[in-house]
């Protein structure tokens, strides 16, 4: 089966052919059924064509014999046209019903997450009736397994498109407008997502992770994220905090519990708990973090963060501080 072959070719967590939610599975099944039907129809058409090319022709028979032979041909052409039309109508109905069932509101009890697209990263916000419980993070979306999650999709600059690849079809994020999308993950795991609308220089390096946790684990993650950043205990990290607060970092980044509160760049309150840097571009390691701070323009040319000049000791202290932001 070509479909099975295609399934085997692509990487596990990075494919629409490997659905991990009821919504993605419906779309995948629709795609598979269209592919298989089209393949069968294509095979039949090729067979008919070959038969038409290679069939025997007797030239010495009269016009009456010709007419007798033409009748079944004409009938089968008519039947084929009717069947084709019927198949297309069946697909129309299937398509509309799949579209309706994945866009129907999941009702109450769904988790609301606001995802705002920026050039070139994702701001993720978990809201609450108490604003002090709001959690803002970036590029990493934790969701509970088996519970519907509604995403409110926004953008502040240009059109982006939110695409949690194996979990859901994509949806555009349009500046000045709000879109929404919902799905629920079947099983725990880390799924990759990607911006799916060309949004400028670093569109390709605008990825995110969806991390589906068991409900209890998700609740404890959310509780940890609500904490403000702790004042570091060791001297180096304390020095790093001073460096951070006196540097250009504070013009764009926020760390809750400190005077830094700008919302232009990603919130760094729990930076060290995240797996990637720069919207899925680099694994979050010490070396990558240093490289990213010193010259992000080498790693992601055009990114809004400028190259920064720190003395060696200041840089080490700064990174030591950022690593305490668990």
């Amino acid at each position, binding site marked *: 089966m070509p479909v099975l072959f295609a399934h085997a070719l692509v990487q596990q967590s990075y494919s629409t052919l490997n659905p991990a939610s009821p919504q993605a599975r419906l779309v995948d099944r629709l795609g598979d059924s269209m592919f298989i039907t089209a393949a069968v129809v294509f095979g039949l058409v090729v067979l008919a064509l070959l038969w038409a090319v290679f069939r025997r022709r007797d030239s010495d028979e009269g016009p009456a014999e010709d007419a007798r032979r033409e009748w079944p041909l004409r009938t089968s052409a008519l039947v084929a046209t009717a069947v084709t039309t019927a198949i297309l109508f069946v697909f129309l109905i299937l398509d509309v019903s799949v579209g309706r069932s994945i866009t129907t509101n999941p009702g109450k009890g769904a988790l609301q997450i606001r995802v705002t697209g920026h050039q070139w990263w994702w701001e993720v916000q978990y809201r609450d009736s108490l604003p002090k419980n709001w959690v803002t993070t970036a590029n990493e979306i934790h969701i509970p397994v088996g519970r519907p999650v509604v995403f409110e999709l926004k953008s502040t600059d240009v059109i982006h498109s939110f695409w949690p690849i194996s979990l859901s079809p994509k949806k555009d994020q349009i500046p000045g407008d709000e879109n929404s999308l919902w799905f629920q993950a079947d099983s725990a795991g880390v799924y990759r997502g990607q911006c799916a609308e060309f949004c400028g220089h670093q569109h390709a390096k605008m990825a995110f992770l969806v991390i589906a946790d068991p409900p209890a684990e998700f609740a404890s993650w959310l509780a940890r994220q609500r904490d403000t950043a702790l004042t570091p205990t060791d001297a180096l990290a304390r020095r790093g905090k001073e460096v951070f607060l006196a540097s250009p970092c504070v013009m764009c980044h926020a760390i809750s519990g400190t005077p830094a509160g700008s919302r232009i760049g990603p919130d760094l309150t729990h930076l060290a708990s995240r797996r990637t840097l720069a919207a899925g571009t680099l694994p979050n390691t010490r070396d990558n973090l240093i490289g990213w701070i010193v010259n992000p*323009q080498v790693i992601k040319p055009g990114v809004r963060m400028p190259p920064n000049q720190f003395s060696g000791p200041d840089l080490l202290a700064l990174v030591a501080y950022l690593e305490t932001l668990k």
Partner: protein
Amino acid sequence: MCSRFRDSVILSAVLALSLAACQREERNFQGLPSGSAVANPKVREVELVPGGNVPADSRPGPYEENAYAVSQGKTLYNQYNCSGCHFQGGGGIGPPLMDADWIYGSRPANIYETIAEGRPNGMPSFGRKIVPDQIWQITAYVRSMSGLLRKDVAPGRTDDMQVRPQEQSAQKAKPVQSAIPKSAEIP
């Protein structure tokens, strides 16, 4: 036949020329070379001269001819909250930036100095908070507000300063019949 050949030669020459026009400018993501005089301009430390229009340096700024950098400057102008005092150039808490009056000079180096070092009575010093490259971008944008940059370099679009939503996103109104005003009555 011959004239058609000549026409097509002329047409392809025009097309080739217009293709060459596509490359307008370089986008310099690395910023200014560090250690250069422009990246680390010498700025007066004190020497308080309030009110005096003292042209310190008549060199052009590095981004006066770069539309990309000016538009970055425009974004930063709002993100760094210059608009908090100067508004969209009309001024309010701080002086207006889109008119012809300059208290501390209109040259790029003057404006750089104003942003980096601050000015008496309210303008904070941003020299240690904004990297030089971005100060130069904001400088270029500030100059574009009063038309001091070339027209094809100055930003041509504002997405977030609409006096009302665009027509396509207007709320559907319920038409109401209003009373006929006095002025419209037949005398």
